């Protein structure tokens, strides 16, 4: 790791101010992407603003027909939240499947969403559920937020404060893990809310998370595993690497979509 200057934020406002004032500053949330990257000397921020002690960024609450999750809420907290388990069990399950238990104790939803790793799980969940990302400056729809690999709509001095999830009647996420890293080789989130069905795919796309229109249409007509069984995702625009060719990923999108629908319609 290169040297940097460390700042411990005590409030969201203070953190946001520091982010603007300090040169080449990065927010440290759970640190489970940023610190490994810095250890490998692939990132060298001059200033680190630690959000770990900012209590106001943590917490989960039900607000009307939404679940609001603070940016610094850990994956374990989402997974174990009674509110999430009751209203959006598929989201709790998604969080329970991120990384490993130790990673879930530190990794945060805000950190994951802001980083937009193309093989992260949350982006698929946010897009499928039509979540809203609330920053210190504005509200951004998930569809507009994720802008390709590691790229988001976040501007200079902008930080995620919380994420608002509409409660869908059916939601599930199915992941096929990379056999080595256990990150999503392909992850598919499926959500149904009223007549609207959204299907979002992570891990597979060259530009990060994307929606699968064919599946949305088919599931919109009939929300059952059978509806997606006959579909074939296109390999165009998908990643191909030593772990999985674009063709294999395309195939897995279909399988994971089917399994997500099965999970969403179970019980």
């Amino acid at each position: 790791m290169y040297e940097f200057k460390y700042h411990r934020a005590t409030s969201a406002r203070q953190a946001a101010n520091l982010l603007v004032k300090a040169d080449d500053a990065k927010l440290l949330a759970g640190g489970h992407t940023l610190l490994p990257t810095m250890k490998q000397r692939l990132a060298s921020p001059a200033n680190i603003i630690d959000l770990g002690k900012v209590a106001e960024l943590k917490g989960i609450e039900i607000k009307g027909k939404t679940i609001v999750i603070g940016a610094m809420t850990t994956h374990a907290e989402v997974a174990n939240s009674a509110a999430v388990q009751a209203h959006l069990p598929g989201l709790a399950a998604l969080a329970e499947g991120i990384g490993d238990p130790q990673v879930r104790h530190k990794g945060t939803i805000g950190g994951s969403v802001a980083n937009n790793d193309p093989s992260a799980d949350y982006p698929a969940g946010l897009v499928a559920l039509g979540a809203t990302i609330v920053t210190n400056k504005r509200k951004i729809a998930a569809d507009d937020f994720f802008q390709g690999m590691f790229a988001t709509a976040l501007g200079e001095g902008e930080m995620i404060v919380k994420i608002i999830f509409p409660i869908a009647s059916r939601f599930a996420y199915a992941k096929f893990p990379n056999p080595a890293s256990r990150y999503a080789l392909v992850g598919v989130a499926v959500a149904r809310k009223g007549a609207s069905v959204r299907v979002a795919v992570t891990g597979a796309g060259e530009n990060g998370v994307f929606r699968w229109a064919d599946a949305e249409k088919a599931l919109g007509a009939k929300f059952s595993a059978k509806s997606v069984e006959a579909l074939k995702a296109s390999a165009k625009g998908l990643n191909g690497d030593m772990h999985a060719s674009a063709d294999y990923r395309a195939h897995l999108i279909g399988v994971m979509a089917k399994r997500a629908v099965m999970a969403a319609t179970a019980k």
Partner: protein
Amino acid sequence: MTTPATGVGAPIRRKEDHRFITGKGNYTDDINRPGQTYAVFVRSPHAHAKIRKIDAAAARAMPGVVGILTGADLAADKVGGLICGWMIHNKDGSPMSAGAHPALADGKVRYVGDHVAVVIAESLAEARDAAEKVAVDYEVLPAVVDLASATAKGVGTIHDVAPNNVVFDWHLGDKAATEAAFKKARHITRITLANNRLVPNAMEPRAALGDYDAGEDSFTLYTTSQNPHVARLILSAFIGIAPEHKLRVIAPDVGGGFGSKIYVYAEETVCVWAAKRVGRPVKWVADRTEEFLAVAHGRDHLTHAEMAVDEEGKILAIRVKTRANLGAYLSTFASAVPTYLYAPLLSGQYDIPAIYAEVETVYTNTAPVDAYRGAGRPEATFVVERLVEVAAREMGQDPAKFRLKNFVKKWPHQTPVIMMYDAGDYAGSMRQAQKLADVAGFGKRKRDSARNGKLRGLGYSAYIEACGIAPSSAVGSLGAGVGLWESAEVRVNPTGNVEVLTGSHSHGQGHETTFAQLVAGRLGIPIEQVSIVHGDTDKVQFGMGTYGSRSGAVGMSAIVKALDKVEAKARKVAALCMEAAEGDIDFKDGKFTVKGTDKSMAFGEVALQAYIAHKFTGQQLEPGLKEGAFFDPTNFTFPAGVHICEVEIDPETGVTKIEKWTAVDDFGTVINPMIVEGQVHGGIAQGVGQALHEGTVYDKNGQLLTASFMDYGMPRADDLPSYSLGFNGTAAPSNPLGIKGCGEAGAIAAPPAVINAITDALGHEEIAMPATPQAVWLAVQKMAKSIAAE
């Protein structure tokens, strides 16, 4: 079966565990010396390049830098290069082409991760910061990466001594007899296979701490070694760091080795040398990425193999042509692995009249390749057990019955490839394993899987290995640079407790327990009164270390010999003390008694008397009770067994799940079944890793794509099943304990068992290791096509 509470055969809990479970282990990186500095290596980013210039001026100016050293400094101090300790000759009798292997590059780099310079600083962070400022001007050369085309014209030359990149072209066996047998064959099975390159990945990365005492003009090297004496011998006699008596090598707790810590590496050589250069202790600890780049890798063979079978299903001959990748430089035992540790095992457990093997080894611009758990024997077993399986299937025979028909049934059995199998019961192990695995119920389980849309398969692997490495004169005649005996010293203290100094080295095998068990049982004293000393060249006189499943068969046999001498001396002391004839002394359960009397002395009393020396004169007997011994085995040992793997494949995703694992092994005498079972478990996991998860991938420029656990599939707990084990021991005649060795068995047996199970499920043979989900999914597509075509 009743098991003894202590002594040989008892599942005694490990003595060493207390320090490990309380965080008090003492690994190399846990050791710190006053004034210690930290080393970071500048490594080549290119697979193949000339070094035009190294400019360290900017780096030297960085904070905390103590020194920056290059190959030129090594040369100035007349420090020699790393060596390969096993001479192999070409078919025409000429010696192999061994290129120079300097510890820091001498004008050229030959793989990504090759050592260019070392930066030594006050802190690790400062060393790393400065290492980035070392400017190296490279002239990049074309990289030779692909094994199949490494000897093609115009690909480039890695070492001048080997213009076409061939290290040697070697063979074993009777070519004419083999060809004659193939002419008589009713059926010939032909397979082409790759044995995938693996990275050993002991959980403790390699580390070294060099220290120099200017007052004594002597060096100490703390290092992650499986054989500190061999390391000292090489560092002293060949590399020229210091005379042996001025160099102490300490291998403290070592966090796993699996072969990868046998070798003398550039980093430890540089650390101990640099300690004198900079006048301060120098510590280096590999991070995982460095370990991936620069540790010796394992396997990496391409093989075409054929088996000739007669009309009755008897195997007539095997013919094998292998190309083995040795990487950019010859590591310490690199040349022995694809030759004498490989081809002599091509007879498997079978009675095969003729065998001929040709092995061509090549340099490539990749990390050096050397022994990794099993070393040559997994490669041989994969060839034989795939050949046998495919032959049985092609001939419409049950694979188990085909094996039973061809097993060696009488011992000793001389194979056509050097080895004399001296004891075994191969058919017995097969039958026991089939029962334990409920092979009879497999059909029903397969139908149940099919009902759930899954494919189930069952695969056998009847492996054999040559362990207890090794009779010195035999290996000497085959080109080994050293003898492979072992030494031991048993020191009985005046108060009756015992220190055993052994040349074996434990890095997870539990020697502190098993060796103590042997001694406690023999001397009739509590195991707590025995301590095992290893891993320090200043304490142990000499030793050849731990690898090749040799510590039990060879290391413990040396202890037995020393114990024989201790007992003989103690009898003399007891006889003098009890005023009896030596022939009238009995020794049992820790007590010396005089026949026909009630006179007795406990072992501890005799020990005390031996040191007090009041009851005898110097003319009668030397005082003291301490004996040493060297043991050189008369033959290799031949652990063998049958493993049965049962898999279920999800054809939708290609995921292979191991549903059942059964192993029946013949390890000869088992000292501690708990520890032996643990060795088998770990071996199987590494073998399953090779079969399903682990594959080392370089791109065409020689960049290592699998350089971390993000991309290299390490088996995790949820990838593996629980294992069901049985033993079918027949005593090894070549050592006094009858031990055969168990450390490598699982890693040798497992890969063909997995692949035979997968191909059984698929109904075709087209799958390579590692059988990752993607590979299996593709193979499932081929299966669908072949069914459609039928």
